[in-house]
């Protein structure tokens, strides 16, 4: 039982990080029909921003803030302006190809301009273990969980309790109608990209102490983002959160109780089952089938 | 003689709304039946039920006496039912000629014979005849997407006729077509009807088009048939006038 709680807590922590990544991914899809195949690399990169800033002498917290800012500008604003906007008028497939190429670009850039070796990444809190109900739970996991929850709550408050947030939701649900009602749709779409930039940076800072900063991180994290988003519901932010948590917990539990070789297969099979039997995911709305 | 189309007590509900409420009628061979009615009277829903796009909540549709319950549109097409579309649905990337061959090819032979047989499935001559009949000769090799709206309407009709169907359902064929083209379209449909002894069912809004083309008219309002008869009778029927003006 004790180990179950441990696995559950660490699973929730990983799941919370997946949720952040998946939420950003879902937001981009909802507001601008962008399927960002480079989302994993978006999470891989900010860690290197932090490390580079620290190499220039900045203390960790300053470096983290710099990384978030850089991420928002480069992975948010520049991504939208340089890649997404010119591509959207050509349809979804060219954009998909571009993001696939972008993921390759970012991965190789990290490898060539920083290092191909895995880099240790400073943890947010000292490696203390807490004792809880007979189980050993790391402070790290709890901190990650706390930060992720705070971020999600903040996002939730933004989307549901502010005028700006409601305008963003309107843009996501029906851009044409939103435009008619006077919502500055283009600006709302920009904001979702900026928010994604911030989310991936936070996720990066949370996960890199565990995974280490490696240029190949993007592959697993990207896959986790897609799986979480789809299982939870491709067009609902709440769904992305649920999907992320389910994925994180399942991942940890299956690694312990099922063969670790086929650990990656489990979420994939769930994905296939979900897409075929309930493509809108657990919480999503059924999208119109495009003829 | 079995009627070509028999609709018996057809009902279609969507949740709480009953779009078609107990409709029954027959279409005999060689007729041109017009179905008219104000907006929201259930014409399109009725059409889609007959064509297999929707399955009726109650009631039955028979083609040449055969019940069509559960058939997919492609199966119905093999039975001899074809249709035109209200919103144009030609294949823009294929040439006019290829559109026509496509429209008829699935009726020729089996899937295997279609792979190993002639590239045009033996429909080259028939396609040429259709092109001449609808006077599309000057654009026969052009991609269908480059044709004018009126020309695409003619192509749409031609595609419906390629398989030599028993029954053709035309969904608002006059929609969005200018008057000259309209006269041309009506004249071609009538010529086809005469020469091939075809059977048509036409849904239309435009009264003049219906009155000039159809041999018999059925009027739908709020999902039910409120009048049936010859065009001239319908035109003067007070119930019909009420239904249209009352909305």
């Amino acid at each position, binding site marked *: 039982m004790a180990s179950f709680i441990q696995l559950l807590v660490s699973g929730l922590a990983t799941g919370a990080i997946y949720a952040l990544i998946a939420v950003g991914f879902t937001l981009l899809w909802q507001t601008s029909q962008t399927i960002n195949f480079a989302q994993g690399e978006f999470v891989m990169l900010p860690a290197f921003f932090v490390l580079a800033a620290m190499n220039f002498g900045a203390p960790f917290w300053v470096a983290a803030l710099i990384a978030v800012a850089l991420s928002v500008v480069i992975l948010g604003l520049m991504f939208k302006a340089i890649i997404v906007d010119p591509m959207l008028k050509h349809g979804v497939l060219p954009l998909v190809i571009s993001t696939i190429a972008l993921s390759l670009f970012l991965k190789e850039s990290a490898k060539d301009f920083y290092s191909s070796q895995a880099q240790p990444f400073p943890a947010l809190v000292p490696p203390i273990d807490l004792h809880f109900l007979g189980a050993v739970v790391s402070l790290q996991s709890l901190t990650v969980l706390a930060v992720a929850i705070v971020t999600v709550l903040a996002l939730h408050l933004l989307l549901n309790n502010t005028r700006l947030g409601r305008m963003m939701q309107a843009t996501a649900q029906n851009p044409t109608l939103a435009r008619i009602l006077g919502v500055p749709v283009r600006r709302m779409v920009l904001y979702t990209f900026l928010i994604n930039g911030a989310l991936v940076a936070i996720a990066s800072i949370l996960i890199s102490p565990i995974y280490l900063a490696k240029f190949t991180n993007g592959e697993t994290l990207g896959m986790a983002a897609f799986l979480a988003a789809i299982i939870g519901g491709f067009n609902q932010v709440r769904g992305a959160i649920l999907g992320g948590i389910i994925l994180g917990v399942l991942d940890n539990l299956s690694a312990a109780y099922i063969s670790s*070789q086929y650990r990656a297969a489990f979420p994939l099979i769930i994905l296939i089952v979900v*897409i075929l039997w309930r493509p809108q995911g657990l919480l999503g709305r059924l999208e119109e089938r495009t003829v | 003689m079995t009627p070509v189309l028999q609709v018996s007590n057809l009902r279609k509900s969507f949740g709480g709304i009953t779009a078609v409420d107990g409709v029954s009628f027959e279409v005999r061979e060689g007729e041109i039946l017009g179905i008219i009615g104000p907006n929201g009277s259930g014409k399109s829903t009725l059409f889609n039920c007959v064509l297999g796009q929707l399955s009726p909540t109650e009631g039955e549709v028979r083609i040449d006496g055969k019940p069509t319950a559960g058939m*997919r549109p492609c199966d119905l097409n093999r039975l001899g039912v*074809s249709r035109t*579309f209200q919103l144009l649905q030609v294949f823009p*990337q294929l040439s006019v000629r290829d559109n026509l061959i*496509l429209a008829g*090819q699935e009726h020729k032979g089996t899937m295997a014979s279609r792979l190993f*047989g002639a590239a045009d499935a033996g429909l080259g001559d028939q396609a040429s005849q259709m092109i001449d009949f609808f006077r599309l000769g000057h654009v026969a090799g052009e991609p269908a997407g480059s044709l004018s709206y009126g020309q695409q309407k003619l192509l749409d009709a031609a595609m419906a006729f390629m398989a030599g169907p028993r029954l053709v359902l035309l969904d608002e064929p006059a929609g969005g077509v200018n008057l000259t083209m309209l006269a041309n379209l009506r004249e071609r449909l009538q010529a086809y009807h005469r020469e091939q002894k075809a059977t048509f069912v036409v849904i239309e809004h435009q009264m003049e088009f219906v009155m000039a083309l159809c041999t018999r008219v059925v009027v739908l309002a709020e999902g039910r048939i409120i009048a049936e008869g010859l065009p001239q009778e319908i035109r003067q029927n007070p119930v019909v006038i009420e239904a249209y003006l009352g909305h």
Partner: protein
Amino acid sequence: MTRLGAVCFAGAVIAALVLPQFLKGYGIYLLSMWAVLTIAALGLNLTLGYAGQVSLAQGAFVGIGAYTVALLMQVGWPFPIAFVCAVVLCFAIGWGLGYPALRVQHHYLAFVTLAFNTLVFLVLRNEEWLTHGIYGVSGIMRPVLMGWSTGKPLAFYYFCLGMLALVALGLWWMIRSPWGRAFVALRENPVRALSLGLDTRRYTLMAFAIGSSLGGVAGALYAPLVQFIEPNSFALGLSFNLLLMVIVGGSGYFYGPFLGALVSVLLPEWLRVTQGYYLIVYAAAIMFMMAVCPTGLFGLAQRAARALRTKRVPALQTERTRP
């Protein structure tokens, strides 16, 4: 085909036949790789470009084809029989993969096929008793066909080229036939296609099956070409690469895959001059290309040809926009 097109085609055929005589071993190897990858890309072009079904699993089929041939030959089966087994297996699995395509489309289908590809990779990696896992299968022999040994690089290249020609011929016949029209109808307007009596289900499954079996053909040739295969070669990277080839060449254009595969095989070699940054340049080039001509190189060529033609006969200018 236009006169310019015919000239280019003839030139390409001559180059393909004659050029290798002047190349060293590595150059011939690259050309053989081009031929093999073109076959896989032609398969994907059929599924995606013609029939409009998004598949990110073509790499897996190359893998299934390669492993089938390699493992069967290891237990002594002759190449031709192993080859046929590989193709039939890929056809059957591809048909099965088509069933999800009947339920979902576009991005959902992309994710299903992506998941399938990764699952195949996991099986290849984990089932060591069958596939030797991460140790791979080595010492794959090149076949001897009716007394002619394909062991030498040049001989094997001509073998691959011959297979490519056969595949291209078969595909060309299919696209010309009613099936080709049916696939285009399936891509452009399945609703209309249904109402014309076209069994969209059967054609969708067929598009997947044939496309996948061509992946199998490519795999069956890939194994004796590289003579050592391991699971990593057939993971998502290959599927993405093949997708890139189809799109860069021009999705839905018959000769697109030939050009796309050439770019994909040659560009890294040309970019070696950038000293290891070539993948970054490659990626940037792809992104640039997508912004400038998303219809691929052949789409660009078609636009250019049309622009040239309009100068001569302005009255017949028609704006053909791809959906």
